């Protein structure tokens, strides 16, 4: 059944998800939402990989996805730890108020 859906729709879905994620990551103020948006972008990329792997009858795409998911899990752990530390430091996780890198 899945084979019946033409690949370009998968790519389209991936693109839409990625764009939503990117816009969300740039525009949202809540750090956790930003974080979720990044996860969304990662998963949009995953869809692309799977689709492409399927299209060319290769497992490479699936292997990439496993790596990405692993990294995403690690990232989630580290990212959440960072947010907790930030919250302790500044009493907020609003990214607009976190501008310690300002030159």
């Amino acid at each position, binding site marked *: 059944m899945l084979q019946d859906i033409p690949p370009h729709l998968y790519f389209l879905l991936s693109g839409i998800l990625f764009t939503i994620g*990117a816009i969300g*990551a*740039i*525009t949202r103020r809540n750090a956790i939402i*930003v974080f979720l948006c990044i996860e969304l972008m990662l998963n949009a990329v995953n869809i692309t990989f799977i689709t492409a792997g399927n299209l060319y009858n290769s497992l490479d795409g699936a292997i990439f996805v496993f790596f990405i998911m692993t990294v995403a899990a690690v990232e989630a752990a580290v990212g959440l730890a960072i947010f907790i530390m930030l919250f302790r430091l500044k009493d907020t996780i609003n*990214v*607009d108020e*976190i*501008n*310690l*890198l*300002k*030159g």
Partner: protein
Amino acid sequence: MSSHIWLIILFPLLGFLINGLLGRWMPRKLAAWVACLSIFASFAVSASIFLEFLALPPAERILDLDIFPWIVSGDLQVYFGLRIDALSLVMCLIVTGVGFLIHVYSAGYMHHDPGFVRYFTYLNLFVFMMLLLVTGNNLLVMFVGWEGVGLCSYLLIGFWYEKDSAANAGKKAFIVNRIGDFGFLLGIFLLFVSLGDLGVWTLKFSEIAPHATLLDPAVVTWITLLFFVGAVGKSAQIPLYTWLPDAMEGPTPVSSLIHAATMVTAGVYMIVRLNFLYSLAPDTMFVIALVGVLTAFFAASIGIAQNDIKKVLAYSTISQLGFMFVAVGVGAYAAGIFHLMTHAFFKGLLFLGAGSVIHAMSGEQDIQNMGGLRKKLPITYVTFLIACLAIAGIPGLSGFFSKDEILWKAFSAPQGHTIIWLLAAITAAMTAFYMFRLLFTTFHGQCRASEEVKHHIHESPRLMTIPLMILGFLSLVGGYVGIPHVLGGENRFEKFLSPLLAPQKQLAASGWDISFISQAWAATTASPHETALEIALMALSVLLAAAGIFLAYHLYLRRPGLSSDIAARYSGLHRLIENKYFVDEIYDRIFVQGVLRLGRFCARFVDEGVIERFVNGTGSTMNALGGLVRRVQAGYVQGYAFGIIAGAIVLLAYMTLRPLY
């Protein structure tokens, strides 16, 4: 024989090194001995060479010795070399002889000075440099000596450097001399380049001389004029003479040695040394004679109204140097050197006598506070009188022979002119007047010193009076080496120098060839008509000198009040002369203030306005640019993310949309 001529310059150098390096651990007496003996040894060597020379035929009286290669660069090959010939030997004898006497005198004069050893160190260095100047066999060695004596002059004028006026006078002398030295250097360059164009790359006198005639006359005129600029600076002629009166801030023996007897005559020596060039440039000769006679006249007129004993002598020195330039300017080189020698005797003596007076008067230099010292300083008085008679040109004394030779040559030489003679003769009368004014106000009449000073007046110690007596003797008899033909002599002095001197416009092609001597002699063998004229002019100049002396006697001894009456009647003129024609003030206004103003302008507009703005502008531009770029780095991570994504989109767009070829 030629191998030991370097001993002449070695001894003063050794004296300088010993006193300079070890002097502070030596007793004062030893330092004075070292200094005096080193000069005496040098004098002895010069004298021995002189005796050897007398035994040789005139053409062989040249010792040229290249000691070591100094600057070797392509075509330019300069050796550190010395040359002793009749001219440099005369100079050596003057420098070491008079120098020795002044060294001995200084040992007495500077006895109480805390800088005793330093003084003798400088003095020995000076003699070394002066000897280098006169014995160098090429222009560069001469230039080293030239600059070296300038340095020593600066050091010794500012010897009492705690005194502001002395330090300033030293600086003034140094800076004014730089102007002249600049001309001298340019002259060397121009000579070197123009000779090089002819394929002769050399700076040696003995190699320049044979090729001088090959040069373009216009170029020779420029070269000689540039050299003359150097002489004007060093020998204190118009317009660069102002440093010499100020140089009197130095110790009096220094004024005597450097600023009367030797260094200031270096310009005359240089012109005579390069006479083969000057004889080819009649225009330059005219300029020299003109500058010389104007300086002589001008300085003598200032000397009339000065009241500082040393200032009178300083202006007198300038005036007498002017006489020497008249001599070389009309081509009478031997007469110029002759006057240089007798002047070294009597002017050196006058300064030493003045030093003796100042010593006795506890440092007083104003002749208005002196008077009647004749009885208290008999030796100083007699020697001073001899020197005054000599400089005034009283027959029988040294100055008479040399000065009259110059006057006669100014009148009779092809380059001479009646106007030049007239001005020089008037100057001679003025010289007699101001010298005897000085003598009468200082040594005759009532003593006008304060009681305390009067109490201390005493004749100087023997260390000082013996040099006075020797110089007095030389001033008396020094002229007899050059008795002119008209008085039955044979002018041995001129004969001694003549192998080196080019007669007017007939330089032999082989340079130092002596065949032209006979021609020169033929020219000087006077016709009876000329003899009568020469004797008449001689009598006239003696009359003028006597008139000057009598006038001084009348105004300052017989009718003491009269001079101030006259001064009051012509108060404008008197003020003008007393203030040295305000030349110092004019120079100050135009040049010193001008340079200061230029400096301020540079500081304010060029430095602050241009350079500083440029430097600061670089910094602030970078700052402003940074301020612009800084805004991008706002610290919002989302902004950075946007940048990354936008960049990625642009890249993607470019990759997809670019034409596929």
